[in-house]
């Protein structure tokens, strides 16, 4: 066998091996940040993100944080977000509410609710939805510890998400952390809201403290104090400014139609 021929064959074999080995590895080595405009590095699609919060009564905050991220993933090719919940959790956790999504800034038409009877069906639906080309994100609201949701299950989900390009968010509650193949793991805590203009006693735009427990988005920064308006995320450096200072800032940065009293737009 001549030497160049042999080298060619060896190179081809190496490529094959690299192909076999690289696929899952590549999925994890991908760029996670999409854009940095708002000060918060928006994660790209195709990731498995776990959003933990300490208590179940923070359910509204985690859903808000997730829908805010999911909204940025929506595109004309991927117009849908699938929300999964177990039937028995509806009364405990509440259901996503259409008019509420409108006032939050999320189009309720884009959200499809799936109410699964048990965890097996929920995971099946999550995989099925991730594989669909038209789904931007899957939001799985899982209250309580689920034995079936182990490392293998989350690995499956993360590979499926990486290959399909749609993100999956697992909303989890409690302080326990299990082994998982999530690309990013957040710990989210609600904080005092921004000041509402003309009404110092009323809650304003929401603020959350998001701590990144796993994965890297920006070098060395693992904590953000995130605000949300209908225009998108806003950030404050929570370490330097106390909550009172934040409240002094106006919540909107962009052009906002003037409001008469509390809710009647002058321009309408």
């Amino acid at each position: 066998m001549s030497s160049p021929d042999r080298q060619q064959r060896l190179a081809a074999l190496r490529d094959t091996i690299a192909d076999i080995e690289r696929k899952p590895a590549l999925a994890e080595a991908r760029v996670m940040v999409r854009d940095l405009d708002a000060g918060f590095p928006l994660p790209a699609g195709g990731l498995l993100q776990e959003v933990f919060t300490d208590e179940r009564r923070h359910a509204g905050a985690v859903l808000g944080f997730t829908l805010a991220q999911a909204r940025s993933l929506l595109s004309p090719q991927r117009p849908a977000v699938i929300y999964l919940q177990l039937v028995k959790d509806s009364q405990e956790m509440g259901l996503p509410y259409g008019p509420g999504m409108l006032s939050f800034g999320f189009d309720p038409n884009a959200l499809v609710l799936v109410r699964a009877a048990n965890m097996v069906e929920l995971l099946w639906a999550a995989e099925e939805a991730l594989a669909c080309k038209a789904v931007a994100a899957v939001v799985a609201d899982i209250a309580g510890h689920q034995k079936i949701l182990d490392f293998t299950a989350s690995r499956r989900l993360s590979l499926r998400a990486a290959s399909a390009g749609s993100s999956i968010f697992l909303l989890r509650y409690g302080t326990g952390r299990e082994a998982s193949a999530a690309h990013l793991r957040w710990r989210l805590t609600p904080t005092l809201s921004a000041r509402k203009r003309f009404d110092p006693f009323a809650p304003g735009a929401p603020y959350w403290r998001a701590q990144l427990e796993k994965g890297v988005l920006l070098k060395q920064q693992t904590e953000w104090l995130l605000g949300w308006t209908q225009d998108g995320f806003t950030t404050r450096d929570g370490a330097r400014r106390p909550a009172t200072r934040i409240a002094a800032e106006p919540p909107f940065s962009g052009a906002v139609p003037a409001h008469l009293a509390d809710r009647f737009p002058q321009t309408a």
Partner: protein
Amino acid sequence: MLYLPTWPTDFLKRREPGLKAPLALYERIKGGLRLAALDAEAGSAGLRVGQNLADARAMVSELSVQEINRPMLEAAFADFADWHSNASPLVAVMRDITQFGDLVLDVTGVAHLFGGEGPMLRLLLNRLRALGYTVSGVIAPTIGAAWAVSHFARNQVVETGDLDTILDGLPVQALRLSPAQIAGLTQMGLKSIGQLRPRDRKPLQARFGISLLERLDQAYGLLEERMVPRIPVAERYAERRFVDPIGLMDDVLLTAHDLAIQLALRLETEGLGGQAFHLFLYRVDHKVMTLSVNSARLTRDPEHISKLFANRSERLEGEYDAGFGIDMIRLAVSSVGALDAVQMGAFATQDGAEDLAQLHDRMTSRLGPLAVLRTQLVASHIPEQAARLVPAIVAEPDAKAQNPAELVRPLRLLPVPELVAINAEVPDGLPASMIWRRVGYRLIKAAGPERLGAEWWRSGQRLQLVPPHVPKKPEPGEKPEKPPYIPQLVKFDADAGTRDYYMAEDAEGRRFWIYRQGLYGENHWYLHGFFA
């Protein structure tokens, strides 16, 4: 027409082979035990239906008896009837005289598949006889004639030309008449249909009512009689019969895939697509299992259809029971509409609508139709009525959802508001603390109240188009009248509906939506939702 005079006892004997030969089923009628069904041996021993059970036992000492279970037998007979749809798509159970025993099959355009009407009748009868059923069958031009001949003459195929001569010779009982009518005709000396037919019709109608003439005309084909088929007719279907019965679900699904391809080819040539697909599994032991799946949009994609059936079969779990095997599978399509061929490729719009619709179909087929939902906004300011969850495969998304008044609403709503204990520092002021699910919260910020009243345009009175109903006093021996139907719509209640909503935030930044039910002074507070 198939007539199975002793079907209940035959069925029970087949189900429980231990039952001894003279078998009778009894029923409690007005405090007495009377025979309701007999098998052939009991019948030949001189017993008859309606006889007292004690008398029957005295006449036939070795009689084995059971209480009749009519709902079970009716359901079993319905299954039995469905199974016959492998002979003809139109099968009905005739309940004129008895609840079970009479099967009507419309064999128009079917008989040639079995080599003609005679061989078809022989095949059906032999098949049932081999299973131990006593059966007689007749193919005739009208339902009435078939009933008459099958009950009172030998098995045969009645041609249209022979109809009159054969019917004329039969007794008047063959016309499916009531006992009173039969007694009256016997009194007049009219024993056979042939004697009855030339009589003047007016006096007959005056004495016996219109039903007698109707039955007569139906039997001779002068008046059309309709049957109500048990399984709705599907015009387009594909089916496969098996030499050896199959049992495994995987085999069934593979067959469903093949049938879906066949059906898709047929639909494609016609330029059609379907929204509902039904898989009928015919078991060798006279049962039909049905699996139905629905699709949000018209489709004829065999991969999609077979995937829906695969998902649907996952939901069956323990229900699937192939029994002794399945010997025929039929895939039928309904809700058919025009579906033109679409050019794929360069000019297709990539909006993902089709992918999404298929995803909804797949999830619905496995999780059930009420598990995959979409929000529909309703023009109502009552929060729980402002959004409605509808199955995603039924509802098209609204053109553009809008929040006209820019109301602040919570991101999550509890399906049922939960009672909370609220303290307000000043009467009629903002809430200051709250206890919810046994945990206390100090509320430091609040906005409100937003008062939502009841919808006054829903009238407190019902619309009265007719004078109100006054129940009459029932005459002795007469049943009391039924009250008229009044729809149960929610009526306007001026006081109950008023709610004062507050958006409250506690010291740690949790934001709740709470409301006071009723006006100030009634301290019934509820938590209704969570803000982001």
